């Protein structure tokens, strides 16, 4: 059964040291839960970015919540590089597992299918193979002889994202952001924040069910209005570019980052 909980209760079920998979900026990032995680003082989390991240990873790294990250990139997009990510790399304060986008999708797909690894095209010749000893190059056991890269299954403890709506049965509308379903299939538990709970049954028609992650995969839902801000949410609101630019400027220094964080967290409390 999917639980309907408050935001604090939602993040209280995440334990220090767990792995948490999070989506790319445009695919429904739960910034509301991100604030609550920082507020709760979580530490030692391992982030799995699908397949990259921006503000969310930078905040979690800067605030000391995440101590290790698997990602294909961390960037604030048009607002520039991710300052706390870069600072943590220089300081050696986070463990980084550099990846390439489709390899993260492939790792989650292996977990979705319950197999230990997934073969993937390309990658040969990249230094990623040097820094990712868990990725192997094997002789293809079937078909035409040749080398193929295999990546291990990624089974995160938690999948965490934000979506426009859920129904009271716990079905969540994810549109065509199918990676959110992949994350949920692969993860042990899935936590979702939504703009609102709707009265209709999202599984009622083929049309609506096609864009839905069924309650079967959803463990807990919390309502968080404007919960992706300042990142966008499809069909609901655009990126708050001015806010991202403000973050990019302030987070260049540790002091500036602390000041930003403090305002960000108190805003979260007002909204909640």
């Amino acid at each position, binding site marked *: 059964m999917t639980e309907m909980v408050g935001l604090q209760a939602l993040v209280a079920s995440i334990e220090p040291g767990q792995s948490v998979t999070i989506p790319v900026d445009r695919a429904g990032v739960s910034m509301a839960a991100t604030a609550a995680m920082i507020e709760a003082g979580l530490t030692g989390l391992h982030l799995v970015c699908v397949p990259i991240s921006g503000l969310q990873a930078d905040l979690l790294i800067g605030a000391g919540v995440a101590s290790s990250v698997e990602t294909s*990139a961390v960037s604030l997009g048009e607002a520039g590089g991710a300052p706390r990510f870069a600072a943590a790399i220089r300081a050696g304060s986070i463990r980084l597992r550099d990846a390439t986008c489709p390899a993260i999708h492939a790792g989650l797909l292996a977990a979705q299918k319950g197999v230990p690894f997934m073969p993937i095209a390309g990658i040969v010749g990249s230094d990623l193979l040097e820094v990712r000893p868990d990725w192997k190059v094997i002789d293809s056991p079937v078909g035409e002889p040749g080398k193929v890269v295999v990546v291990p299954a990624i089974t995160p403890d938690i999948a965490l994202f934000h979506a426009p709506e859920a129904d009271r049965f716990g079905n969540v509308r994810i549109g*065509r952001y199918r990676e959110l379903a992949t994350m949920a299939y692969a993860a042990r538990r899935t936590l979702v924040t939504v703009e609102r709970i709707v009265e209709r049954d999202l599984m009622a028609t083929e049309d609506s069910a096609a864009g839905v992650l069924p309650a079967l995969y959803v463990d807990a839902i919390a309502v968080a209005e404007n919960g992706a801000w300042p990142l966008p949410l499809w069909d609901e609101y655009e990126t708050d570019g001015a806010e991202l630019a403000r973050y990019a400027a302030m987070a260049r220094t540790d002091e500036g980052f602390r000041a930003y964080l403090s305002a960000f967290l108190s805003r979260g409390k007002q909204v909640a």
Partner: protein
Amino acid sequence: MTMQDDRARKELLITVIAGLLDGIRHVAVGASSPIPAAGAMLLRARNEQQGKPPVRISILGSSRHNFFTNGGVELFDCAAQGRVDAFFLGGGQIDGAGNINLVGTGDYPRMDVRWPGSFGSAYLYHLVPRVILFREEHSPRVLVPKVDFVSAAATTPEVKRRGGPHALLTNLALFDFDRERGGFRLRSVHPGYSAEDVRDRTGFDYAMPEIVPPTPAPDRTTAELIRGQIRNELAECYPEFARTMAAA
């Protein structure tokens, strides 16, 4: 650089890109790549005018300008199926062997300068037949003899691949990539620069013809197309950039 010069520079790059893409059916463009997108739009407009096959442009991260319904993985699957003919990659460093570095400079992992990361490059370089390396800055710090970290390798004789670099386009010049030899060959130098300028500002060795021609500037019809239809199409996805393309 005056606004007039900057517009001429952009129009030249857009025209070169449209030429490099000639003959493709489907090109994917990054969300923050207005010049490659404009080049693709120019090709699409020209093909329409000339009754040539239509060009499909997928702008990643745009909900209106993408044809995918299967999430973030679909572009990568599409490339693996041979349904993406062209793509653009940049690089904090690009070396003479065509390898690109999107990770950083210095020793991994605690690098002197850290960039965002490899994105999909390690994969797409193998699978997309016509990868255009596009990097506006043409300097020895970008065009290096050997990259500090190979995000994606240009040639890998040990595996079969259909993809790899096709050309390298900068603010100064256009190079072709020779996959047999595994290196670049200078094709043309943009107006206002000489072959010596290119030599001085390129950190790697490359082949060149005895007489290096200038990169052809857009003809009047092309320039008008860019300033009209293409600028309007760009404004939907890249409003800021479209503004900079306005007449000075």
